[in-house]
């Protein structure tokens, strides 16, 4: 671990100023950053501790509809906020399917957006990784790739973004509110994370020193509350990253799908909004035929990046399942095993 400065910021302006220099990183709960530092994966020269900034730990209901969630709101606080969970049940379900209870009690909203990939080659300093060391190459190619990307990857990086939370958020058109030296701006979450292209080291659109201050759910997001699910396929029932996950949100109008939102996790270096599938679903009758067509549309561009072709078929089936469950209606209570295929006793097929 290199030597680094530690700065505790007293205001957002102070934080942004302190983080403007190259090599600075924001520190919130540190559930990912500190592990990366201990492993020598990242070596920030300055940590700007934002955990004491006032006002960033609030969940607000906005006057015209929608919610604003402060960057420092803990995962568990957000999941168990009754008003928020009622409005965005799939977001709550995604939150409770992530990490472990201990981590959820510490990890923050903004930290979840900023978490790094779990690609084992990224975490292994002895492996070549373009994300860690631009231009070094990618040892994941030709290596152990069972969990790697099937959408949006490039020759330079085949990693995935590990977030559960971001998947329903991107489906619901969440907006990231950002503070920087030059003032505030906002970016749609869907445009916040970057695909690897030839610069996988640049993971988000944040400019140096910019900081997430909050996240906004727009007015119409709660309109999907009655038909929203998040489903996560994983190798064990808890404390595992998604092999593939999906979030589906539907507005049903007179027996037809008025509007549909669909996003996938674990398939790409960003939470993957499946807009082509949404087009297929809009106006369609809910049912296996339209759900399958949507799944095909969502995966039309998919291609394996290694030993992971199964994820494409799995994602298709998961989309069908998630849409089926969403169409059947959001469960009244949070399932005992959130986001699990074994979550409840409801029938698997429409």
């Amino acid at each position, binding site marked *: *671990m290199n030597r680094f400065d530690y700065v505790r910021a007293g205001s957002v302006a102070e934080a942004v100023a302190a983080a403007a220099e190259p090599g600075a990183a924001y520190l919130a709960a540190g559930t990912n950053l500190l592990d990366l530092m201990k492993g*020598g994966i990242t070596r920030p020269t300055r940590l700007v501790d934002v955990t004491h900034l006032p006002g960033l730990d609030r969940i607000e209901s906005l006057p015209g509809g929608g919610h604003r969630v402060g960057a420092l709101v803990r995962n568990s606080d957000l999941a168990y906020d009754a008003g928020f969970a009622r409005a965005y049940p799939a977001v709550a379900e995604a939150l409770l399917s992530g990490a472990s209870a201990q981590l959820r009690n510490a990890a923050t909203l903004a930290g979840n957006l900023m978490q790094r990939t*779990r690609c*084992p*080659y990224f975490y*292994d*300093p*002895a*492996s070549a990784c373009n994300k860690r060391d631009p231009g070094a190459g990618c*040892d994941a190619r*030709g*290596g*152990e790739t*069972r969990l790697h990307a099937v959408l949006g990857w490039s020759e330079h990086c085949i990693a995935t973004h590990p977030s559960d939370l971001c998947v329903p958020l991107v489906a619901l058109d969440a907006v990231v509110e950002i503070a920087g030296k030059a003032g505030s701006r906002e970016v749609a979450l869907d445009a916040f994370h970057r695909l690897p292209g030839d610069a996988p080291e640049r993971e988000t659109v944040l400019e140096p020193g910019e900081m997430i201050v909050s996240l906004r759910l727009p007015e119409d997001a709660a309109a999907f509350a009655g038909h929203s699910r998040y489903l996560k*396929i994983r*190798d*064990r*029932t*808890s*404390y*595992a990253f998604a*092999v593939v996950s999906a979030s589906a949100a539907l507005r049903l109008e007179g027996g037809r799908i008025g509007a549909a939102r669909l996003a996938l996790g674990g398939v790409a270096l960003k939470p993957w909004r499946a807009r082509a599938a949404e087009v297929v679903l809009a106006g369609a009758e809910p049912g296996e035929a339209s759900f399958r067509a949507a799944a095909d549309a969502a995966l039309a561009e998919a291609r394996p990046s290694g030993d992971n072709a*199964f*994820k494409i*078929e*799995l994602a298709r*089936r*998961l989309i*069908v*399942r998630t849409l089926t469950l969403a169409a059947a209606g959001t469960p009244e209570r949070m399932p005992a*095993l959130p986001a*699990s*295929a*074994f979550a409840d*006793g*409801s*029938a*698997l*097929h429409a």
Partner: protein
Amino acid sequence: MPDIAYEQARHGSSIGQPLTRRDGILKVTGAATYAADNRPEGLLHAVVAVSRIARGRVTHLDVAAAKGHPGVVAVMTGANAPKLAQDPDAKDNPFMFRLDLLQSDQVRYAHQPIAVVIAETLEAATEGAELLAPRYAVEPARIGLDVEAPQEPDAVGAGDKARASRGDVEAGLAEAERRIETVYETAAQYHNALEPHAIVAQWDGDRLIVDTPSQGLGMAQMRLAALFGLDPKNILVRSPFLGGGFGSKGLLSGPQVLGVMAAKLVGRPVKLVLRREQMFGPVGHRAETRQTLRLGTDASGALTALDHHTLTATSSFDDFYEPASALSRYLYAAPAVSTGHSGVRVDTGTPLFMRAPGEASGSVALEGAIDEMAEACGLDPLDFRLKNYAEAEPISGRPFSSKALRECYAQGAARFGWDKRAKAPRSMRDSAGRLVGYGVGTALFPALMMQAEARAEIRADGTGTVALGAHDMGQGAWTALAQIAADGLGIDLAQLDFQSGRSDLPNAGIAGGSAHTATAGSAIHSATSAVLAQLAELATGDERSPLYGAGNAGVFARGGRLLRRDDEGRGESFADILARAGRASVSAEGKAAPDSASREAYAMHSHGAVFAEVSVDPDLGQIRVTRLVGAFAAGRIVNPRLVTSQYYGGMIWGVSFALHENAVLDPRSGRVMNANLGEYHVPVNADVPAIEAILVEEYDPHVNPLGIKGVGEIGITGTAGAIANAVYHATGIRVRKTPITLDLLLG
């Protein structure tokens, strides 16, 4: 002998009682002292630097940079490491493994220790180790079972025969009505007890005190004596509690010895604790296997031949071959049985004993093959197992000392509801439409005996002491052995001072092979019997005693008194006997060892039957074990609560074996790519189903004086196979590798 033991136990108040752990409160309040909790005056911290390549040489270490870091006291490399009295590459017996103690610049596996940094703080030592920035001359790693032409080893496991057979398997297969050939693969698993290997070492001249988790105090003491040229009497090894051992702490590992070397180098006490990722290399693992089974049956479904061959891997520099085929020597009746092993050498650390070594991996393959053969015969899997029930050990032909396996099958099947199993695969569903499957596996683990010593004493105040260097690795030795000790002395547990967990007590052997309770318990029985014999001598030979003339064999002990067998109303307290004799105490030593005559005459094993129910999502492949019922017969049960816990632990490892555990090595680098507990999966609570363990009654007059068999390892066997068979029954997809992951079930 057995009669006396049973007599005592019947009258005793402790053996057979489901007592809670005597050390439970210490543990849940954090008061139990584990090795790394020791902080002697002047303690320094040592951190191991490990290799990031799997094969080659270390060409440079920046020792100056590490030494220059504030707080770093010393950097131990091959250049300045204390000279050892024994070559770490020496190997005198199968229980002695070659250790990496900085003896050369050669790298033989990833995560091999290449230097040790000793500092005033853990942080400084950690940073110092980082600053070493090793450079290497890299050679290509050799990884995987196909890396070279396999060779037949001289021995497998701990000196077991690589090959054993009876009858003509080829003829048996040729004459068979039906035959199958099937190949199963099991993944490598790495030792990851919750407590990593840790040591606190203190030198005082030529005396050495080490606090370190050990499943074999005496062997640790002897190895340290040999390595450092010390009189064993000058070495004290303390290990009151282990945070899990599972075989990885039976023999000293290299990093533990490095802690002792570091303390010697700096002349101050040193603590060395492995980081989690450092567990993936120098402390042993269960090697991967590829097992080929060929089975044949006659028209009735009786086996005519069983051939079980295991291909496995050992390290490039030492020999430990997973004895996975050995199980087929013990379990199913067939006129012709052949078992063999072959191995390749790869650039990993040396594999080692891991809970049910051989049996665990072998059981998955054998139980799968048996299931396949049953189906080929059109028989119910349980009926097929009963049809091929071995009345005598298949290869040796010896009768079993006891074998209540039929009762295990019957009680387990009844409790589980096996009769509700639909015959055809993929024909059972739950109310939500998920696929449901039932599977069965037979469990077996040999009932071993080793050697142990114990000391016992009864004092004039009626209290007693039993002392031996036994090992509590979580299984409950502090409780179970104390129960045997209390009954052995005929006193209440509250009157017993039970001493254990130190090498300066009588050598209790090793806690391994599921034999610790049997072995240490037998030594305790021997010592306590000898003490009681002395007391009886004092009493029955003295005409002032109410026991006068009863004869040694005519009395027994209970509640701190000797009583006449033929008239329990006549007795005398220990205190009175000793007072009249003018003695402050009587004491004796006892020993236990396998009885070679009975072991030649009888085959000795614990048995069991495990029934699994799984639920599989038909579209998504997600598997969930929903029920496990195990019925086990293991001779006398000393403490049913602890034994049940041992069965649960084993069965949960069976879940892990079947569905989760898998060390993923990059074949190019030889590094374990999931060397952390986030990604090296073991089951979480939510993966553990409703588990039930049935303790099936079994009386064994041959196995040892107390009739105790082992319970520590058997729970894994049978379970993983039962789950795999249930997955097949649920889905109709036979996955012949573990772990079974959802991608293999997408169809």
